[in-house]
C-alpha cells in the first residue's frame, strides 16, 4: 500500500471498486482535480452562509452533476457493522435519478410514461401498499388515497377497544388492501383515464375527509369489478343500484337515481368488456376468487360480520377497522371482504327475512347491521 504514487481518482469520486487492493493511493481530496463531479464546488458553496436566514439559498450554485457514481462499496473501512441485510442491500447512492426538475411534467410521450409506470410497478413496488403514487417525481399523484401505518394501526386499536373481533378487523383491512391493489392494477392498465382530478375520485375513504366513493359495504364486495371504471359516478350508481329500497344515506348516493340495474353492470360508462378483461387480472389479487360466485360467497358471509361492526364504528374520520399484522397488509392475497366504512345508517324497509338467508345475491345485500334478533 505504500508504493503507490498517484492518488486514486475513483476513490476521490467516492467509488473505487478495488478497495485495499487498489494500485493507487486512497487519499481524500489532496489533489485539486477531484472535482470532476462538482463535489469540490459543493464543498465551497457549503461554507457560504446564507446572508439572510431565510434567503434559503446560497447565491451561487454548483454545476449540478447528473449521474454520479456514488455508492462506495469498498471504502477503506472493512465494515461489517451494519446488519447483513443492509450491507447486501448496499449503499445504493447510485442511480440518483436526476431527471431535470421538470416541475410540470406533461406526459408528452404517453408511451414512455406508460413504460415508466410499468417498470415502477414491476420493480419499485414498496411493501406498504396503501399508498399514493405518481409516475413522475414532483408531479401530483396519479393514485391518491394515502394511508399511513399509524393511521391503520390507530384505527385497528380503536376498533379493538370498541369490541370488534380481530377477524372482522382483519377482514376490513384486507378489503382496503384489495381495493388499493385493484386501483393500482387499473391504473397500470389504463393510466390516462383523465386528469388526476378524476383519479381523485378513487380515493379510498380511509380518512373521513376524503370522498366516500368506496364506502358502502356492498360496493366493495364487487370491488374488483367496480374498480375497473374508476369514476365516481359508476360507484355511486352501483351503490344506488344495490341500494334499492333503502333511502340514500351518505352523499355518495344522493346524486344517483340509477334504477336497480344488475349490480355488476356498474356504471353506464364502461362497456362490459372492461369488466371481463379486468376480472382475470384481479383474480391474481385474491386468493380464492376464481369466479364471481365464490366472491359472492365470501362476502355474503363477511357482509354479516361487517354489518355488525360497521354500524357501530361509523364516525366522521372513517377509520379503517382492522388490525392486521404488517405482513398481511403488505400485500398478501386476501379474501374478498368488504370495507364498509361509511355505511348509511338508515335502516332498510323491512325485509327482515334477508337476515335469515344463507346466501345473498348482489342487489339484496342489506346495508346496515342486522337487528339484534338475528345476530
Amino acid at each position, binding site marked *: 500500500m505504500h508504493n503507490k504514487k498517484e492518488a486514486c481518482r475513483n476513490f476521490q469520486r467516492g467509488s473505487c471498486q478495488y478497495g485495499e487492493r487498489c494500485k493507487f493511493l486512497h487519499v481524500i481530496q489532496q489533489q485539486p482535480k477531484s472535482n470532476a463531479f462538482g463535489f469540490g464546488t459543493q464543498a465551497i458553496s457549503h461554507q457560504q452562509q446564507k446572508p439572510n436566514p431565510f434567503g434559503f439559498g446560497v447565491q451561487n450554485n454548483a454545476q449540478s452533476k447528473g449521474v454520479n457514481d456514488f455508492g*462506495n462499496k469498498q471504502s477503506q473501512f472493512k465494515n461489517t457493522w*451494519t446488519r447483513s441485510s443492509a450491507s447486501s442491500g448496499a449503499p*445504493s447512492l447510485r442511480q440518483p435519478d436526476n431527471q431535470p426538475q421538470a416541475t410540470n411534467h406533461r406526459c408528452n410521450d404517453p408511451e414512455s410514461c406508460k413504460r415508466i409506470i410499468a417498470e415502477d410497478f414491476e420493480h419499485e413496488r414498496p411493501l406498504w401498499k396503501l399508498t399514493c403514487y405518481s409516475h413522475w*417525481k414532483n408531479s401530483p399523484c396519479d393514485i391518491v388515497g*394515502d394511508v399511513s401505518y399509524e393511521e391503520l394501526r390507530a384505527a385497528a386499536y380503536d376498533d379493538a377497544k370498541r369490541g370488534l373481533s380481530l377477524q372482522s378487523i382483519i377482514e376490513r383491512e384486507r378489503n382496503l388492501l384489495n381495493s388499493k391493489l385493484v386501483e393500482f392494477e387499473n391504473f397500470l392498465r389504463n393510466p390516462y383515464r383523465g386528469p388526476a382530478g378524476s383519479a381523485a375520485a378513487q380515493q379510498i375513504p380511509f380518512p373521513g375527509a376524503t370522498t366516500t366513493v368506496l364506502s358502502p359495504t356492498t360496493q366493495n364486495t364487487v370491488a374488483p369489478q367496480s374498480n375497473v371504471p374508476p369514476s365516481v359516478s359508476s360507484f355511486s350508481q352501483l351503490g344506488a343500484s344495490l341500494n334499492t329500497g333503502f333511502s340514500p344515506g351518505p352523499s355518495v348516493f344522493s346524486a344517483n337515481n340509477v334504477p336497480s340495474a344488475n349490480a355488476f353492470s356498474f356504471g353506464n360508462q364502461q362497456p362490459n368488456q372492461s369488466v371481463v378483461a379486468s376480472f382475470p387480472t384481479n383474480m391474481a389479487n385474491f386468493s380464492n376468487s376464481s369466479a364471481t360466485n365464490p366472491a359472492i360467497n365470501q362476502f355474503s358471509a363477511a357482509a354479516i360480520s361487517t354489518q355488525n361492526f360497521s354500524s357501530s364504528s361509523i364516525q366522521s374520520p372513517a377509520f379503517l377497522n382492522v388490525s392486521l399484522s404488517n405482513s398481511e397488509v403488505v400485500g398478501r392475497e386476501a379474501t374478498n371482504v368488504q370495507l364498509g366504512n361509511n355505511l348509511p345508517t338508515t335502516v332498510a324497509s323491512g325485509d327482515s327475512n334477508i337476515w335469515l338467508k344463507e346466501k345473498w345475491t348482489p342487489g339484496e345485500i342489506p346495508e346496515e347491521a342486522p337487528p339484534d334478533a338475528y345476530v
Partner: protein
Amino acid sequence: MSTFGAAAANHNPNKSFEVAQPPSDSVSSLSFSPKANFLIATSWDNQVRCWEISRNGTAVASTPKASITHDQPVLCSTWKDDGMTVFSGGCDKQVKMWPLLSGGQPMTVAMHDAPIKEVAWIPEMNLLATGSWDKTLKYWDTRQSNPVHTQQLPDRCYALTVKYPLMVVGTADRNLIIFNLQNPQNEYKRVTSPLKYQTRCVAAFPDQQGFLVGSIEGRVGVHHLDDGQQGKNFTFKCHRDGSEIYSVNSLNFHPIHHTFATAGSDGAFNFWDKDSKQRLKIPIS
C-alpha cells in the same frame, strides 16, 4: 397485535444496551433531553416513559424515572429547550405538557380534531407546533387554550421538521409544505415530493438550505430550497433487500458533521453524507 414481534430470531444483533422496563408495545418516538441524559419514549401502550441514562465506565445504565399515561396511543414527543418539560401527543388528539424535572403533573396544552402525529417546540417563537391528521398545523402558546394560529394543510400531516426559521411539513399524497417561521401564516413554498410514493419522514438540513424526505419506497430525496440550487437535488435508494423495498422511517442529521442517519423498516440503520453522496461505513471497533 400479538403477531407483531413474535420475537425476531435475534432482536439485538449489535449487542446494544437495552433500557430497563421498556414499553409493552411498539415505541412510536424517542427524544433525548437537550440538557441532560434523559430519554423519553412514547409508545402504543399509551405511556410516555422517562429514563435517566448514565455511564458506568464502559457500561451503560438506565434508570426508569417517571411516566405518564395518555388515553390512547402516543405518537410523538419532544423536549422543551430548557430540558425541563416534555410534550407528548397522540391518538387522544391532545398534547400533554409534562414538567417532569420539577415533578409537576401533565397538563393538556393542545387539541386537534384527529390524532396528533407530530409535535415540535420552537424556542425562537416560544410556541409549540402540532401537526395532525385533521389536516391542520396549529401553533400553541402553552398558557392559552386556543391556538395562536391554525394553518390549513392540503392533507393529513405525516411528518414535520423544524430548523428555525425553516419548517417543512410532509403530508399525505406527497405534499411538502415549506414555511418560513418568520412569516408562519403563509406557506413559503409547496412542493410535490420528488419521491413517487407516500412520504414517511422529513429532516431539515442543519444549515437550512434544504431538507431530506424519506418515503415508503426505500428512497430518500435531497431537496434544496433555493431555485438556483435545484441542480443539486437528487434521490437515492436505500433499505432495500433484493426485491423487497422497505420504507425509510426516520431521518436525522448529526448536529456537527451534517451527515445523517436513516432508519428503515428492514431493521437497519445507515449513515450517509449527502455532499459526497456516500454511505458511511463504520470500522469495527
